[in-house]
């Protein structure tokens, strides 16, 4: 069946001028994929971007920008990681061959009807609760109507006047390197809808082909209040949403694959003015860092126009972020409001949530990023550590499991953020892919703390555990790595080294005390690195100084 349909689509390439792409009334095609792999805000934002663009290099801009304030609101589309699409049984896998994840229903063939995937409701309720919003116990679906070749039914099933959740907020902490600080941003609404397909444009732009794999994939649209004031705040808001959906397990939140897409509205007004300035929408933001830079560019552009008395040149339009030029450019000017002729979707019954259902989902929610950060903070970790550990749900889980096995909090944090993170970065692995288990990390930390092995040997074992697995005890035994803590045994080795190095001993006793390090090294070598360094030094010093 699929292959028949596939052929049907392929054999009907229709002519389409590239400009027609911009005639679309809703959504945008997120097909540009940028090379950067980073998906979390914090690491990327480590190099602060200057709010400078070619146009606005004029001196004193910083001073001018102090007189203005930017108003930023964000619409985020989150692709839900349900096994099947929102209204049919098709699985969806990003990157599949065009038109292989389709059926008569998501193709919009005559006579087909949507049947709601209950997981979509579950995920929407989870996100609604996590965003501290008010759930509508009675909501419904509506049809949003417009024509576009990637929209098989000629309408998108969405929610219009009664979204599943409305009013809410997210709490987040700005990265320390950006000055830190806690922020709370309002959420206007969360609603469920279906995604559209994709157009694949031919190289010379003479025709386009339709790939309907993505058509009917469930989305949540999360609309923020216009609460953000800078690029970094907006980027961190988006990063927090990503964290949230990953913590909840409702989406992979991957921006490069288009699983998390942000459309940003930016306007600028003189401080003290109550009315908003003219807002400009920015699209094509494929990473948090791009968001940050695009918004700051756009703020500068608008402030500069304001300050030059050209604020009338700020018009309501959609601008595109150009990664190459590091600037926003006009994509299309608004041609008046489009009329989507919303009306209630007659093919789907109302969505009715019972209190019991909501309660059961509420009680199944995991610990969310904000709570986790506050808990880590209370444990005494620094904000830098807190943000690092809570950033990735899997890292946080690993950390929690490690300290759950009794490991020292600060030591566990240091091991994870230090050697383990470095290894993962080098090998491009996630914490779930390394062989080390929280159990063994806790064991390792305890073995060092308890003196069974030295810190140096601990490090060696760690890399073995990460790469090959196994247990700390097993490795210590196998490699005979138990630290020598018996003073008598160490004394024997010290004596032997002193006997074998009479010349150096003489020099030492002659006042060249720096040689203590040489002797310590020799003894350590003799013990194959197993001698307890404290004991070793203590005994060595005693012996060296004994007859002087």
């Amino acid at each position, binding site marked *: 069946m699929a292959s028949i349909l596939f052929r049907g689509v392929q054999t009907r390439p*229709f002519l389409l001028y590239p400009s027609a792409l911009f005639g679309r009334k809703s959504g945008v095609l997120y097909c540009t994929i940028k090379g950067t792999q980073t998906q979390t805000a914090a690491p990327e934002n480590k190099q602060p971007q200057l709010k400078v663009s070619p146009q606005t290099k004029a001196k004193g801009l910083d001073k001018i920008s102090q007189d203005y304030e930017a108003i930023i609101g964000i619409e985020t589309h989150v692709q839900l990681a349900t096994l099947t699409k929102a209204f049919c049984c098709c699985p969806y896998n990003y990157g599949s061959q065009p038109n292989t994840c389709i059926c008569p229903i998501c193709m919009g*063939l005559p006579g087909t009807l949507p*049947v*709601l995937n209950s997981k979509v409701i579950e995920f929407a309720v989870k996100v609604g609760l996590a965003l501290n919003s008010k759930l509508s116990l009675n909501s419904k679906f509506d049809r949003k109507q417009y024509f576009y*070749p990637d929209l098989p039914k000629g309408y998108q099933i969405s929610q219009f006047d009664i979204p599943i959740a409305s009013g809410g907020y997210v709490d987040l902490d700005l990265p320390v390197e950006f000055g830190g600080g806690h922020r709370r941003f309002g959420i206007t609404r969360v609603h469920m809808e279906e995604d559209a397909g994709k157009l694949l444009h031919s190289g010379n732009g003479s025709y386009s082909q339709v790939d309907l794999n993505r058509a009917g994939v469930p989305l949540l649209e999360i609309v923020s209040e216009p609460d953000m004031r800078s690029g970094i705040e907006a980027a961190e808001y988006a990063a927090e949403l990503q964290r949230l959906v990953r913590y909840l397990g409702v989406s992979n939140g991957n921006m490069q694959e288009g699983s998390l897409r942000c459309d940003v509205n930016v306007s600028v007004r003189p401080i003290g003015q109550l009315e908003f300035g003219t807002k400009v929408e920015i699209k094509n933001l494929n990473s948090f860092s791009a968001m940050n830079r695009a918004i700051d560019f756009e703020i500068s552009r608008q402030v500069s126009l304001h300050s030059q008395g050209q604020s009338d040149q700020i018009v309501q339009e959609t601008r595109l972020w150009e990664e190459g030029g590091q600037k926003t450019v006009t994509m299309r000017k608004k041609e008046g409001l489009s*009329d989507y*002729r919303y*009306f209630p979707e*007659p093919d789907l019954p109302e969505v009715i949530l019972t209190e019991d259902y909501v309660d059961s989902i509420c009680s199944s929610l995991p610990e969310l990023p904000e709570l986790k950060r506050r808990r880590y903070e209370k444990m005494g970790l620094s904000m830098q550590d807190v943000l690092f550990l809570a950033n990735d749900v899997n890292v946080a889980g690993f950390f929690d499991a490690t300290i759950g096995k009794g490991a020292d909090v600060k030591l566990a944090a240091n091991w994870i953020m230090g050697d383990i993170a470095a290894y993962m970065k080098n090998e491009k692995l996630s914490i779930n892919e390394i062989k080390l288990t929280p159990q063994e990390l806790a064991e390792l930390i305890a073995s060092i703390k308890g003196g069974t092995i030295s810190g140096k040997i601990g490090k060696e074992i760690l890399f073995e555990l990460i790469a090959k697995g196994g247990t700390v005890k097993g490795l210590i035994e196998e490699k005979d790595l138990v630290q020598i803590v018996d003073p008598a045994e160490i004394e024997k080795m010290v004596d032997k080294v002193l006997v074998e190095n009479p010349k150096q001993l003489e020099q030492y006793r002659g006042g060249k005390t720096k040689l203590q390090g040489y002797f310590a090294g020799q003894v350590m070598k003799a013990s194959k690195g197993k001698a307890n360094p404290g004991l070793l030094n203590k005994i060595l010093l005693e012996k060296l100084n004994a007859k002087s």
Partner: protein
Amino acid sequence: MLSTVQNPRFLLRQCRHFPPKRRRFHSSTPLFLSQPQTLASTDLSSSPPQSQILTIRDNLLNRRTTAVELAQLALTRLRITEPQIHSFISVSETVLREAEEIDGKIARNEELGPLAGVFVGVKDNICTADMPSTGGSRILENYRPPFDATAVKRVKDCGGIVVGKTNLDEFGMGSTTEGSAFQVTANPWDVSRVPGGSSGGSAAAVSARQCVVSLGSDTGGSVRQPASFCGVVGLKPTYGRVSRFGLMAYASSLDVIGCFGSSVADTGILLHAIAGYDRLDSTSSKHEVPNYTSQFMSISSLESKPLKGLRVGLIRETLDDGVDKAVVSSIVGAASHLEELGCTVTEVSLPSFSLGLPAYYILASSESSSNLSRYDGVRYGSQVGADRLNSLYGDSRAKGFGPEVKMRILMGTYALSAGYYDAYYKRAQQVRTLVQKSFKAALNENDILISPAAPSPAYSIGEKKNDPLAMYAGDIMTVNVNLAGLPALVLPCGFVEGGPAGLPVGLQMIGAAFDEEKLLKVGHIFEQMLKGYKFIPPLLADGIAC
């Protein structure tokens, strides 16, 4: 737009509240008042209609005939009648092979489905796998769906043989079947007249005995009005009783697949085959499906007053000015027939009745403007080549859709537009709620409600083609039932003058939601006890066995 549609006063007087008036019918009104002379030639002692389905089953099981013989006979009849009637857009090529399979089953003594060997016509807006399914539209010319509609699948699972796809007004929008992009279907009672619509092909096919039963769809009366025009039994089930999966959507909140048969029993057997919950249609109901077929008792086992105690409400607004006098007489006659069977008939008033028509046309047009958006020439159906996207859409749709469909898309688009939504769509939804309430009140007092199925008998082809408002007005008897989502059965109850042998008149019986069982029971008794009529069109009078 509203002002032109909302004026049904020429048909019906404005709604007024007045208490139901008790009126005895058989004392004051002679039974069969309108009995035309043309019927004199008909055998008055003819027996009531028998279930063709049960006869076929009996003949097959007792090896009196074979499915192949039946199929050949039916195909022959089809060949003879089709040039006059034009009820089918396409005819299946696998009929004989399917009949052979059934004969094989009989030979192997395997269990036979309840529709084994039964020829079923399917309206062409209901999808059939690998058979053309055009919806009567150019835009889907030669389109073959990759799947069977749930109703079709269930018919096939019961052993039914889909004989072909029947003609209809494009996407179900019309009341005459003249709105088909392909052909005009004739009424078997008078080939110069329309069969009604939009399921005119399905009604005419059963009337001309081209198939035993057929599937239609009813959005505003598209099963009941053609049943009345063609003198067959038509059943519009409760909304949600039959899955809509595979039915090309016209107005999703009103659409329902319905059944045609030459007897109430056949209609009930077909309903039983297709009814029930379907996970592919979230608006299909999980309400239990009773055994509709268990109640079709033979005439000999009926008592003298088999419907004793049944409360019947005659909707007074349906007998007002604007309704054909002869039709009114037939309905009054039917009411007195019901009284003779033991029913208590009273008049009831549905105050919101006249509001139903404009509300229906707003809601149906609005939903259709959305449902027909998918026919854009991009993925399937006819495409007009163009070098701009907007021209591709515009030209494909301009060429693919007929005038009636375009008009309704325009009306619906207008009604849903920003600034007009509240005045039209929302207001119409409020009227819908009123209609539902007034039906509920009337059905609290009565077991069933009765009315004509159409304000007139079948009219001439072309008569209303250029007068859409007159055609819309003809839906007044049926649209309210769709707005309320209730089940209704239409069965022939008499004749009026016209055509070579008179024209049949249909009686509409409306029941409470999911009470098809009662409608079928009452309808069956009404039909079996109605003496002196044979609803077989003159076309078949000479020699074609029925």
